[in-house]
């Protein structure tokens, strides 16, 4: 029974991992850019939820509010910074996103102070008792919404005209331009979506998890592991890998001991890359 409980907790957390990792992998897939500031987007999503409660809004506004705010931030970051540094060498690109991460983190420290915050109790605070399992409403909602949104993102990319246009830009920028697609617009959109996915994941987690401006680091690391495991640039890969990491963490913590959960996660990570260097669903090197 306890094993089942750990499994359910792991899958629910894994769904959130999957959601923000989709955003990271999308940027890589679109423009071969590693965004080190992705964890900070998750952190800002948490503070967006906090601001929503300060404004007197209920939890129903957390996720949409964070989505809108972070979408805008993602677009601004692309147009203001990334678009410029994409013309520079690879090192400049990497360092710019790293610098962006520091800028966002320490701005958050300045504005919100280093104190840990939690969202006040709300209608989402209760626990459901189903079939002998205890499931926190907040976790259930976060897990379910995250899984749904990650899936929606996948559908958007593969089944819609907009997604096709974005993929066209990813495939061949010049050819896409010849077809009348504006790559800048698509890439702005991709950055917006990426940041929004991180923001929503943050807002959903904020309901259950105490946070401070330093929290982004932990999530950035998780996102990189998930994206690498799933295969760089593969949204379905990131989804599957997100669930795998969440599940492995929970089961390893319960069966072996909480201190060893990271060891198990990275052992599996290395083992998978040993067998499939391109990740679970990544395209093999050309």
């Amino acid at each position, binding site marked *: 029974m306890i094993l089942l409980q750990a499994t359910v*907790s792991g899958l629910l957390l894994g769904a959130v991992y999957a959601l923000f990792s989709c955003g990271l992998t999308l940027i890589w897939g679109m423009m071969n850019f590693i965004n080190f500031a992705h964890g900070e987007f998750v952190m800002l999503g948490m503070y967006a939820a906090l601001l929503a409660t300060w404004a007197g809004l209920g939890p129903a506004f957390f996720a949409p509010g964070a989505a809108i705010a972070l979408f805008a931030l993602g677009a601004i970051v692309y147009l203001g910074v990334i678009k410029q540094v994409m013309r520079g060498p690879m090192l400049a690109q990497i360092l710019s996103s790293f610098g962006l991460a520091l800028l966002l983190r320490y701005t958050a420290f300045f504005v919100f102070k280093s104190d840990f915050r939690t969202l006040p109790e709300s209608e989402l605070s209760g*626990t459901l*008792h189903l079939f002998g399992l205890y499931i926190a409403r907040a976790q259930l909602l976060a897990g379910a919404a995250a899984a749904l949104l990650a899936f929606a993102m996948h559908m958007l990319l593969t089944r819609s005209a907009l997604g096709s246009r974005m993929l066209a830009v990813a495939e061949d920028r010049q050819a896409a331009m010849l077809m009348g697609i504006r790559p800048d617009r698509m890439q702005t959109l991709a950055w917006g979506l990426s940041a929004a996915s991180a923001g929503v994941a943050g807002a959903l987690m904020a309901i259950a*998890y*105490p946070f401070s401006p330093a929290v982004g680091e932990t999530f950035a690391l998780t996102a990189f592991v998930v994206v690498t495991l799933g295969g760089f640039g593969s949204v379905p890969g990131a989804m599957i890998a997100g669930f795998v990491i969440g599940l492995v963490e929970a089961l390893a913590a319960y069966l072996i001991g*909480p201190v060893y959960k990271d060891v198990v996660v990275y052992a599996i990570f290395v083992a998978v890359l040993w067998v499939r260097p391109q990740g679970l669903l990544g395209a093999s090197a050309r």
Partner: protein
Amino acid sequence: MSMARSLAAALVAALAAAGTASAADAVKIGVIYPLSGNAANAGKSALEAVRLAAEIVNDPHPELSPLPLAGGSGLPNLGGAKIEIVSADHQGNPAEGQSQTLRLITQDKVAAVIGAYQSNVTFTATAVAERYGVPFIIGDSVALNIMARGFQWVFRTTPVASDFAANYMAFFNDMNKAGHKVTSVAVVNENTDYGTSVATTLLEQAAAHGLKVVAQIAYSANSTDVSAQVLQLKDKKPDGVVFVSYTADAILYLKTMKNLDYLPPMMIGDDSGFSDPTFVPSVGSIAQGVMNRSAWDVGKPGSVTYKIDQMFRQRTGHAMDDTSARDMQAFFVLAEAINRAGSTDPAKIQAALRATDLKHEQLMMGYRGVKFDKTGQNTEAATYLIQLQGSDYVAVWPPQFSSAPLQWPMRGWK
């Protein structure tokens, strides 16, 4: 001629007299804390507490008379000399701690030094004091290695991890005798130096008190999910759980315990996360009855501690906390020793410190007393156990010092 000579002699005599009267010059005490950097808040608060203590010694405060030197003015055995605080900022940096202590001793010529908050800074700063033969009093740093170097000039008033662990286990034993069954305990600790070392001491003390440890769970403080740990506790059903946790994880544990509907009969949080100013606002409503430690208790209105808290609030705008109070106590112990020495000669102060024997009634803290062993550690150091009742922690153990009755079992969110 002879007139002039005798005048000169008189002058010399007067000067000599003035020389001895210079004992009434201010006694300088160096105070070194992190006044900038990460721990600046704690350091500034500690400095203010020490300044307040100096004021209490320098000016007459008969209302605080159980404290030695509070009633009168200055240090009576040094002709009523006042104490002057010379502060220094080590920025939380061990190297800076060393050079600032050097400055206090060689340039400001302080009679003794108090500091230094972070254990690793205290470790280096005390080495300088030892080299120069100047007494160094530690009010707050608890790492064991500080006192393990056979130093002769370093004295520590604060209780350390082994004292806390002994107190927790003695409390559980007391509860067992009072009819609340406590035979098994679990220890949950974060896995860096702090959590690991306290957990080791806890396991030793549990064995010494005949308590069975059914689980020791180490975890990483930046975990995003602790349900596995809580499920493990739920499985083992200990009668008491001791948490050695930082802030985010302490809050996360409480929330997860509520979500998974698990509540032990009693849980003790070892300071840190459970004393963080955000803990009570965040999870106070679901953590009712959780225990914590503090050697400081505000006490009832009219008590000495209550008055000190009022004075401190007036000065700083916030309430007295355990760390600042422990530092303030260290200052009082030092001042009492200097007065007994009747001199600012370091060797005499050292001898006086070694002979210190203060009783609980003469202290503002919950120590049994102050008496230093060979290593310089206070053997009478102890702590109160406090319990979260409503939105405040109140002292509930040991019973003779309690300011509210203990609630057993803890109610949590129920």
